[in-house]
């Protein structure tokens, strides 16, 4: 079994595809903090400055998923699934004009996953 930290639902893949057609290459970045924080944001690749402090959690629907390393320390024992919900965030995330918002469902990594991913 392939171990992964992040997955995506079929509905969310369809939305990502739509955004890829509109905007080209994309990245996800996991936000934290106030208001719309704690939600994944999707941007055009290159829009957000990324460096070694951004951990690459994996790739979903061809899109890299990043999280700041400080935040990752508190999140690394959990598995994330990117989903969508109707709604309206107030960030710069590209899906917002479409009337949807990416969100995450989380679960604990099982022992096997934890052993493989958090060595």
């Amino acid at each position, binding site marked *: 079994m392939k171990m992964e930290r992040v997955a995506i639902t079929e509905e969310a893949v369809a939305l990502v595809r739509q955004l890829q057609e509109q905007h080209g290459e994309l990245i996800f970045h996991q936000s934290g*903090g*106030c*208001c*719309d924080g704690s939600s994944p944001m999707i941007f055009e690749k290159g829009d*957000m400055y990324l460096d070694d402090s951004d951990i690459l959690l994996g790739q979903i629907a061809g899109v890299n998923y990043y999280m700041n390393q400080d935040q990752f320390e508190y999140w690394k024992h959990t598995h994330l699934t990117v989903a969508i919900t109707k709604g309206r*965030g107030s960030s710069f995330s590209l899906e*917002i*004009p479409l009337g949807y918002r990416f969100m995450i469902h989380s679960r604990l990594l099982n022992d096997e996953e934890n052993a493989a991913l958090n060595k």
Partner: protein
Amino acid sequence: MSYSKPNFKEKYGNFINGEFVDPMDGTYFENTSPIDNTLIAHYPRSKQADVDHAVAAANAAKDAWGNTSAAARAALLNKVADIIEANLEEFALVETCDNGKPIRETMNADIPLAIDHWRYFAAVIRAEEGSATELDEHTLSMNIKEPLGVIAQIIPWNFPLLMLSWKLPPALAAGNCVILKPAEQTPSSATLLMEKIAEVFPPGVVNIIHGFGPEAGKPLASHTGVNKVAFTGETTTGQLIMQYASKNLNPVTMELGGKSPNIFFNSVMDEDDAFLDKAIEGAVLFAFNQGEVCTCPSRLLVQEDIYDEFMERVIARTKAIVQNNPYDSSCMVGAQASNDQYEKILSYIKIGKEEGAKVLIGGQASKLEGAFANGFYIQPTILEGHNKMRVFQEEIFGPVVCVTKFKDEAEALEIANDTLYGLGAGVWTRDAHQLYQIPRAIKAGRVWVNCYHAYPAHAPFGGYKKSGFGRENHLMMMNYYRQTKNMLISYDKNKLGFF
């Protein structure tokens, strides 16, 4: 007393250069009320061209506005306060409708506080002075505060008119022109304000642009015609805005949320008196504004020897919370601001349970009857667990508090400071030493001591760590909207003698 949904027009415009204008490409978005998920009105889905228009209007107005006297600016700020005050109930109803918060809160907190912030900054600019220093007998150094010019402000949806009133008055008082973008979830009270004060300021001094973050917010934050960006929101957008500002070498201020600890030492239970009653309420303030507060006291830290007894009372008080029609003045906790927030909160409660947190009360959506069945309501929830759980580390932005116990002062501080954020904190004790030493050791910009959730003008508010920087609600905010002109004047008639 019960009110009902206020009336709105079918659609509204942006407020640019002193008048309401349609979005240039004619597109609008639907704004709904989270109370019952019904339509409020259509608001402009602004794009780059609308932002350009507003930025141009502000730039055209900035020189004249920047040269007005402090007396003239103060008079206009006071006028705005008077207008809001004269229409308090109308503003409160619109705010409740748009955001979902209880009417008793908008009537008694949001709108009165908003009014006072306008008055505070009107007063401050009449009292403050520049500075001058005689460096030697012939040389005078004189500091004159000058406005930056044009300010972009992007505000959140949790306290729409109050956040506007935290940001607009200091920028205007300092002599700047402003383009403010309300959150797309809550455009209504800013629009109502512009209707009421359309004639107060010269055209171009105050501009309101509606629309979505990627389409209107980003062009505004990255605009070369803007001299400073002020933002309240989350960390990723904060980073992006700083990035865009760096291209323009513009200053920024950021308020990015928190995960505030609310610490109760055992002495609070020494007596069963009014203070203990206040402390119990202080713990239950996590549910204030549906938990949609950057400083929500969402981590409850209780000393272990009083834990059981104290929590029994906190749970009882939480149980007594009335969650019903937000237009009814008996309502204490209303609707979450939007469906996506509602879903996010439920997903956090779920991961909290999975991580082993115990639900002491609540833990699910709240089903209201009738028209409110389509609204977004969550039961006030207390989760018991430990500080390494994700529910203790992330801002849930719902009526959810996570409680844990601590042994002594050292452990209380260790837990309190084990967070990425540092916006607010609460310390409750009858011990005179603790009430000074513990707040000093907490890494947060605002520590409430034996109180919580007070936001008076005249007390600076802002974050440490990843909660951002800048200090609002206070005279010091003016300096984030100004630059210092130093005039170095020589009264010496003699040359240097170099050439």
